[in-house]
């Protein structure tokens, strides 16, 4: 057996780009997908805008500005274009769009796949793009047949003259259409005219991911490829004082060992040689940013933040007055850990840099930032930089960062030929940009009717935005630390919201699926449950009473409760817990059925029922998958996850000490999509936030034990159970 064909020259590089840029064709049964090797851009045809191309063979190519990180954008977004275009879905090819201003997110003014925003932000743009093309095709047909535009209909990539029955394929008039005037205004379809939007289309990338042909970042193969791993500092802020390379160079295949900032790069002809050489490399490290950093310090620092004044984000109403006239008040403090992204595909990047050009294969969801990094690191102008975006083995916010891209470019500049930088699993944990630890103290009251009278909320946490987007820190307040509290669906007649910025902890922070919602939903929804219990009210009834201003939020709570048979109560030996949340413009309610083994403290989640109102579900299958996936991601964190630190650095090294949810721990998940007739909003992050409080509330229901710290590991549950006695 011979090694797979690779590339012989620089010119072939460019051919590679043309040939293997992610391109997917929907197959005949519309269920599966094929990787296409044809260079569609070179064929003559009709490209009225950046989003589509129709060639003379009637092949419709649709460009997807967003990256496919598992969330289904390659299926969902092109279907929006195809529907308004009246394309034949079975003959649509989908291609990753290049990095270009036309593909920037209209809200964020940057090409980035984040914030559950792909459908929400691009829905109108993509519909319009399809409708523009359709209008021009119809105009071209009307001109050719000399008939009024109104007599022409379209269906499955054909223009049809209704009175005469004449028809043409889109490809037949593609060139003529490109000479038609670009329409300033288009009429979009009515809901009932949709053929693809609202249908549970199968994912176009499924087959390539099942037969192993999908190219992820780590799968990029090039002739003369070198590999690189980094020896990394064992603690934050340490730098190599002394590097002994001799033993490492003895490993066969090792070609180069050199320092890159605070790391040492090991380049070799095979990945295994890199890893072996790294094991042999002796480095003496010097210094450290925070040598005393460990789990205890984190807890102490974060909790002590609650004892000092912070910056006030919101003051609404007269808290003092509301408190003194409250029927009942309650207070509680919560603590949440640092969390890792732990994508299945570790970070990696491939680059070929020389004086003339930069070729980059960057598995990052932040395309604009990749381009900027390439410009900065190589000093080359944009036209000499070519970037490919491969499939990504998960992200959950991690690939918003481009640190691994910069690292790769720094190495590639010093290596002749292409180089693939890859991170080992322990690198992936130790170099993560974590979801921060966080604590919150809530004090609130209710009136005699069970309505919240005041809500006082203090958050103590390091800032996520400080490094990523410092401009968004409003008067020292991190927007993620307070999100979903000041704009909660609950009616807080008086609200006092305060943030204490913890600056003394070294671990770098990043966006982690649902960001601040992952903290704030846990604290708010746990506390709501405590209030309901204290008032002797049913947790669902109590929530509904306080969601009067948000009928969509109330509706999802009602649907989830009904579908979970809340009225009937928990099964014997189980507890039921509920939570609701509003994030990325979507409403969600979650009910968890849980049992606790009182001997071991082990929590078993049997079933999760969830109702979601994300406006129009463009692809109900993908919506349900995203909600279910989000729930399980959040459940994994709630039950198991916590990053550990010691001696100034990360000590978590892999799935042995950072176990994630497995199949046997996975509950049945039922997702109900509530159609409120609104435009589509986000789903990717929605399931993650509300599952932890639903489970914790169910533990309380089952055992009477209230746990205010995560994760809900057996040891912690058992401790609470024994304290209760």
């Amino acid at each position, binding site marked *: *057996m011979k*090694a*797979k064909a690779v590339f012989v020259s620089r010119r072939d590089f460019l051919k590679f780009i043309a040939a293997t840029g992610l391109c997917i064709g929907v197959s005949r049964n519309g*269920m*599966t997908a094929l990787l296409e090797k044809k260079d569609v851009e070179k064929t003559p045809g009709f490209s009225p805008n950046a989003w589509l191309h129709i060639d003379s063979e009637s092949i419709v190519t649709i460009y997807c500005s967003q990256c496919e*990180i*598992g*969330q*289904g954008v390659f299926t969902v977004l092109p279907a929006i274009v195809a529907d308004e275009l009246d394309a034949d879905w079975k003959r649509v090819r989908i291609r990753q769009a290049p990095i270009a201003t036309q593909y920037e997110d209209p809200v964020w003014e940057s090409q980035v796949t984040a914030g559950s925003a792909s459908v929400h932000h691009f829905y109108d743009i993509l519909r319009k793009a399809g409708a523009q093309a359709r209008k021009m095709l119809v105009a071209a047909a009307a001109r050719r047949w000399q008939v009024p535009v109104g007599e022409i209909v379209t269906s499955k990539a054909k223009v049809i003259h209704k009175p005469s029955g004449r028809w043409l394929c889109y490809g037949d008039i593609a060139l003529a259409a490109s000479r038609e005037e670009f329409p300033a205004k288009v009429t979009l379809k009515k809901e009932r005219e949709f053929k693809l939007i609202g249908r549970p289309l*199968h*994912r176009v*990338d*499924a*087959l*390539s*991911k*099942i*037969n*192993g042909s*999908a190219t*992820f970042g*780590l*799968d990029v*193969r090039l002739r003369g490829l070198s590999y690189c791993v980094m020896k990394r500092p064992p603690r934050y802020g340490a730098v190599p004082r002394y590097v002994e390379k001799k033993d490492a160079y003895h490993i*066969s295949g090792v070609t180069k060992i050199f320092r890159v900032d605070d790391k040492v790069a090991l380049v070799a002809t*095979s*990945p*295994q040689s890199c890893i072996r050489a790294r094991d042999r490399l002796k480095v003496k490290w010097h210094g450290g940013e925070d040598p005393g950093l460990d789990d205890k310090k984190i807890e102490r620092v974060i909790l002590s933040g609650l004892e000092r004044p912070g910056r006030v984000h919101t003051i609404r109403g007269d808290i003092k007055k509301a408190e003194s006239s409250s029927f009942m008040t309650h207070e509680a403090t919560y603590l949440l850990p640092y969390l890792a992204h*732990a*994508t*299945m*595909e*570790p970070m990696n990047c491939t680059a070929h840099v020389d004086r003339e050009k930069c070729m980059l294969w960057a598995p990052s969801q932040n395309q604009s930032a990749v381009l900027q990094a390439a410009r900065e690191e190589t000093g080359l102008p944009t036209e000499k930089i070519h970037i490919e975006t491969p*499939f990504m*083995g*998960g*992200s*959950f916010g991690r690939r918003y960062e481009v640190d691994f891209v910069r690292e790769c470019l720094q190495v590639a500049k010093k290596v002749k030929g292409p180089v693939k930088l*890859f991170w*080992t*699993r322990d690198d992936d944990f130790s170099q993560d940009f974590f979801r921060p630890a966080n604590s919150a103290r809530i004090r609130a009251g209710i009136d005699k009717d069970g309505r919240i009278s005041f809500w006082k909320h203090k958050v103590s946490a390091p800032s996520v935005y400080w490094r990523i987007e410092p401009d968004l820190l409003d008067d020292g307040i991190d927007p993620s630390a307070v999100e979903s509290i000041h704009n909660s669906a609950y009616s807080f007649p008086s609200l006092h919201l305060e943030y204490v910025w913890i600056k003394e902890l070294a671990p770098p922070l990043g966006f982690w699926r649902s960001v601040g919602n992952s903290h704030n939903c846990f604290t708010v929804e746990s506390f709501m449950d405590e209030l309901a219990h204290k008032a002797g009210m049913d947790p669902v009834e109590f929530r509904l009473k306080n969601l009067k201003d948000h009928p969509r939020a109330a509706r999802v709570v009602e649907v989830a409760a009904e579908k979970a048979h809340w009225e009937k109560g928990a099964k014997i030996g189980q507890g039921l817990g509920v939570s609701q949340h509003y994030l990325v413009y979507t409403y969600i309610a979650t009910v968890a059925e849980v049992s606790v083994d009182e001997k071991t403290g082990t929590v078993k989640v049997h079933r999760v029922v969830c109702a979601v109102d994300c406006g129009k579900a463009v692809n109900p*299958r993908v919506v349900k*998958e995203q909600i*279910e*996936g*989000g*729930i*399980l*991601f959040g459940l994994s964190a709630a039950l198991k996850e916590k990053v550990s630190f010691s001696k100034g650095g990360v000590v978590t090294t*892999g*799935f*042995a000490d950072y176990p*994630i*949810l*497995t*199949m*046997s721990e*996975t509950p*049945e*998940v039922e997702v109900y999509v509530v159609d409120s007739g609104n435009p589509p909003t986000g789903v990717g992050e929605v399931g993650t936030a509300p599952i932890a409080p639903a489970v914790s509330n169910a533990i309380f229901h089952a055992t009477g034990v209230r746990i205010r710290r995560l994760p809900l590991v057996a040891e912690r549950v058992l401790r609470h159970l024994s304290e209760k006695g």
Partner: protein
Amino acid sequence: MAMIKFTLNGKSVETASEPSTSLVWFLREELGLTGTKWGCGQGLCGSCTVLVDGRAERSCQLTLEDVESAKVVTIEGIPVSHPVKQAWLKESVPECGYCQPGQIMNAIGLLLKNPRPTEKEINQAMDGNLCRCGTYNRIKRAILQVAGKLPV
């Protein structure tokens, strides 16, 4: 130099690579069979699962020496018409897709050993194959389908 021989996806392979070469890297980087994924290198995630003489094994924990004379099958060696792959398509299992080749190979290993596994047996056999996107329920349904325990 001593050559190592084994059968890969039905074809015989002979290599002069070092006997201690890790199977996952050999498959991926030397033969270009990148469907077998590298996820942790610690034998803890299952992304690199292949069949060795019909048993599901972690290829990151095996060397070429370990598979001398053995029959190795990777995701590329399983035809799309295979009932497990068909069930995966029908259930629309993958999201990011990175763990799926390993999941499929592990499921095939299970079904070779036990063609009609119970749900509990599926949980036991599949528990070492991690998925971060949360596709476990669809994976389980796909396996139950092949086992004839769910209507197709």
